């Protein structure tokens, strides 16, 4: 059954701050095999003008996707999570995430579409630091595949 279009524009409460740690960034950089010192060495980060190590561009997804759980699990929306796959992903950066950031995410349902029986839901996650400065916005499009015929 197609999802209710009236949910487009619905915004969920901002999440409790996620504190970005140097060692978590290091762990992530190692997991993707990226040896750029700007992720692990504060001096290398300072040389590029950053106050501390920065995170790889996709690091923030773990934070925004957890926040998107509010949408995915909203019983009123009724998305069938067992049928959900990640369709596409986009980030728009004001600045890179860095160690010491305390980030909170505000999730908004940006679009709901129906295509060939599949529900396509785009969730926007606006990420701000503790001073209220915008850091990055993530757009996550999820596809809930059509239920198989019984």
């Amino acid at each position, binding site marked *: 059954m197609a999802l209710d279009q009236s949910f487009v524009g619905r915004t969920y409460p901002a999440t409790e701050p996620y504190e970005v740690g140097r060692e978590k960034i290091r*762990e*992530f950089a*190692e*997991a*993707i*095999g*990226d040896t*750029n010192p*700007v*992720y692990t060495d504060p001096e290398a980060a300072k040389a*590029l*003008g*950053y106050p501390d190590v*920065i995170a*790889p*561009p*996709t690091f923030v*997804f*773990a934070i925004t*996707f*957890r926040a998107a759980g509010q949408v995915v699990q909203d019983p009123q929306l009724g998305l069938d999570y067992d049928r959900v*796959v*990640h*369709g*596409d*992903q*986009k*980030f*728009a*950066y004001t*600045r*890179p995430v860095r160690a010491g950031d305390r980030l909170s995410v505000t999730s908004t349902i940006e679009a709901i579409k129906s295509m060939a029986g599949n529900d396509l839901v785009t969730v926007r996650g606006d990420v701000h630091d503790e001073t209220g400065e915008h850091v990055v916005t993530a*757009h996550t499009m999820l596809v809930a595949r059509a239920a198989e015929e019984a």
Partner: protein
Amino acid sequence: MAARISYDDVEVGTELPTAAFPVTRATLVRYAGASGDFNPIHWNEKFAKEVGLPDVIAHGMFTMAEAVRVVTDWTGDPGALVEYGVRFTKPVVVPNDDEGAVIEVGGKVAAKDDEARTVRVDLLVKSAGQKVLGMSRAVVRLA
């Protein structure tokens, strides 16, 4: 903030150095831990096959993370990235052997914005001869 590539040195059509990123089951387990994505399709062959996949597949976000390294290695400054987006079109299938799979990435400058001094890089991302990401684009600010 301080990309080492100068905007003026880059033209539409400029190709970025290509790269190949190996991915084994061990890579996926490590990525699962670092990212917090423990979906069993990324480490449990039995489960993956039960849900209709040919084998264990890589996290889409892992592939996305690798693909943009062609851009961040080129500029030297990952913080110079302004936008990055991909569509997940085909899975990267990772067999349970010593070789695993390889993600091959190429990139080409597709557009320049003189006012913002940014360029759009279109990425071509393949594994086992198939394109695995579509609409894979990064906008990056150059010096």
